[in-house]
């Protein structure tokens, strides 16, 4: 399996009136800012690959499904090494 690392990332988020969070843009680094086209699913899950437990957002970014995690108020992704 591809090596991955836990990478904390800044995320632009909208707070809905229902209290839900809707991640809008994942600012991976200077050159890579990913717009989240759609959130397909949110559930609590353990991230076994890089470690961590929190709310897992299944996001549609540029036609691909990607997991974005919110753990203790901080966002992270499983980044390629």
């Amino acid at each position: 399996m591809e090596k991955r690392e836990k990478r904390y990332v800044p995320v632009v988020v909208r707070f809905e009136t229902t209290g839900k969070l809707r991640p809008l843009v994942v600012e991976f680094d200077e050159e890579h800012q990913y717009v989240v086209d759609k959130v397909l699913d949110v559930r609590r899950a353990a991230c076994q690959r890089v470690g961590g437990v929190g709310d897992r957002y299944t996001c549609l970014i540029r036609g691909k499904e990607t997991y974005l995690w919110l753990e203790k108020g901080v966002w992270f992704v499983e980044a390629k090494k």
Partner: protein
Amino acid sequence: MDRRRHILHCDMNCFYASVEMQRRPELRDKPLAVCGSQEERHGIVLTANYIAKPYGVKTGMAIWQARQRCPHLVILPPDMDEYIRFSRMAREIYEDYTDQVEPFGLDESWLDVTGSVRLFGDPVAIAREISGRIKFELGITASIGVADNKITAKLGSDYKKPDAITRIGEDNYREIVYPLPVEDLLYVGPATSKKLRDIGISTIGRLAECPVEVLARRLGKMGAVLHTFANGRDSSPVQRSDHIPNIKSVGNSATTPRDLENEEDVKLMLLLLAESVCSRMRELVSRCTEVEIYVRDTELNSFSRQRKLAAPSCSSQELAQVGFDLFQKHYPWRRPIRSVGLRGAGLVEAQSSLQLSLFAEDQRRDKWERIDAAVDHLRQRYGYMSVRRAVLDTDPLLGRINVKDGHTVHPVGYFGG
């Protein structure tokens, strides 16, 4: 009608170590132990993982002993906040199935799912679902025992580890439970175990078949209780989530970062402990009528002494003073002290009408209590360190311990006492 209850006992395997392995994948194939911090001298193994256990690393062992048995052991300090977070998340899973969830420490819980079987399927199916969710949502494993009472359910969760479900019913009770060593039973500690083994009772089966009169003669009231436990006839209920136990005392103790050498040290520690105890009593809207101190010296000899108060109190000044009097009276100072504790017992409701007194001492007590309450309030808003007694700064090492919020996992008793 089927009157049998359906009880699960969920036990998260090697809990502290599992949480650490979950969040640090690089440690998953290494022998690992979570240990009390060495600098503050609580240097014992709290939990070891399944890789370390075959080396003989056990809970309660000193760090140096563990290192001797397993030289490449990875030692981590505990992160209680994280373990509490995992424990809370597990509880949220349990509460999807029943509101009768009774925790036993951070890593174990009993669930009464008697009323949930029509909704979620038979108890083993519920256990399977919970086990799957703990794995998916928390990334760790649990062992679950399924039975018709709490004691047998616990034997079930202990029976096969890790990541297993064991159902114990009438059909397989003798086969599974009878050969187990008697020490596996809750409340058979070293002392009881010795008494039982002295009369030839080494397994739970032997205990179950022993006439109850013999046990009562040997062990008193506990003999009869253990006899019902061994026969799988425990009828104690699983407490509901919102159950508030009838608390009879509030205590705190601390193993200090350095030995206490003189009375000033002890006075300071008692003040710290009294503040914590009183603040917790105020949270419970109670006052205590009795003060108890506990002292353990560097050779681990310990004693406790108590005294009744003239009137109920939750003044930290007063509790510390009474504690200190007791100490002065009973400690001969043969050795320095390793840990001290203070307990307020005989709690009474603070709201119930207090006998007012004409004497000055009571007015003073009231004044001190109001000062304490104001301090609580300030600390709640601005943090523990925002307001402190000046005397605590005379010894920064001892004075900066926060006994109240510093993580003590208060032991819970099975009988809800």
